[in-house]
């Protein structure tokens, strides 16, 4: 029942992290759910690069708090979170989440909740480098709504 939180300033390798989660050999784990978030580059809104700034120390602490909250709700095996900082190119993985559990429902719910919490709570900020210059990404209401949904679900149970 390991928790691993990694802030990386070099390439994030989702396949290798998937391999890490499968290699633990814990035989009571029937399910693994992973999420990978990637830099998008749309034809009508091109992005040359993405710069990820974070608050060193608080990022790791916040992610640890989020994992503890999710573990208190669902019985989980291993949890691995890796997040890039620094300069990324379109297509590059930004974040990897991996959760193992005995059954799929817990792994799916925990992975989705982790991601919703991470988006709204972890002190990380994106700046896009575009043909029209640099712009800070705006926080989105739908991310706040997604994170708030889990609070409601957790309180109902």
């Amino acid at each position, binding site marked *: 029942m390991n928790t691993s939180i990694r802030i990386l300033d070099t390439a994030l390798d989702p396949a290798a992290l998937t391999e890490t989660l499968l290699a633990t050999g814990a035989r009571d784990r029937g399910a693994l759910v992973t999420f990978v978030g990637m830099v998008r580059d749309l034809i009508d809104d091109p992005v040359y690069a993405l710069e990820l700034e974070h608050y060193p120390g608080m990022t790791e602490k916040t992610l640890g708090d989020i994992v503890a909250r999710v573990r208190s709700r669902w019985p989980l095996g291993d949890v691995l979170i890796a997040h890039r900082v620094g300069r990324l190119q379109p297509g590059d993985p930004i974040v990897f989440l991996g959760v193992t559990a005995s059954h799929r429902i817990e792994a799916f719910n925990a992975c989705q909740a982790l991601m919703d919490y991470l*988006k*709204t709570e972890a002190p990380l900020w994106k700046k896009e480098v575009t043909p029209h210059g640099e712009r*800070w990404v705006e926080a989105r209401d739908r991310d706040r709504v997604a994170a708030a949904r889990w609070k409601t679900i957790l309180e109902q149970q």
Partner: protein
Amino acid sequence: MVEVRFFARLRESLGCTRLALELDEAITLGQLKARLAARGAPWQQALAQCAVLAAVNQEMADDSVLVQPGDEVALFPPATGG
């Protein structure tokens, strides 16, 4: 003394990454922000935004939270990671 750190858009608009504020006794985060705003128009404007969040010792904090000498304070916009 208290160290105040700034991140992302706020860091850029203030042109300031870290600031050391004289502090002999505990004040609220709200009072601390008022002291920063008093540094001039750019500070007042940047800090007046409702989207400025704060952490004291790496815990999210609202204006009522007490800041002690030696604490680490950080001000930043809403998170956009992931």
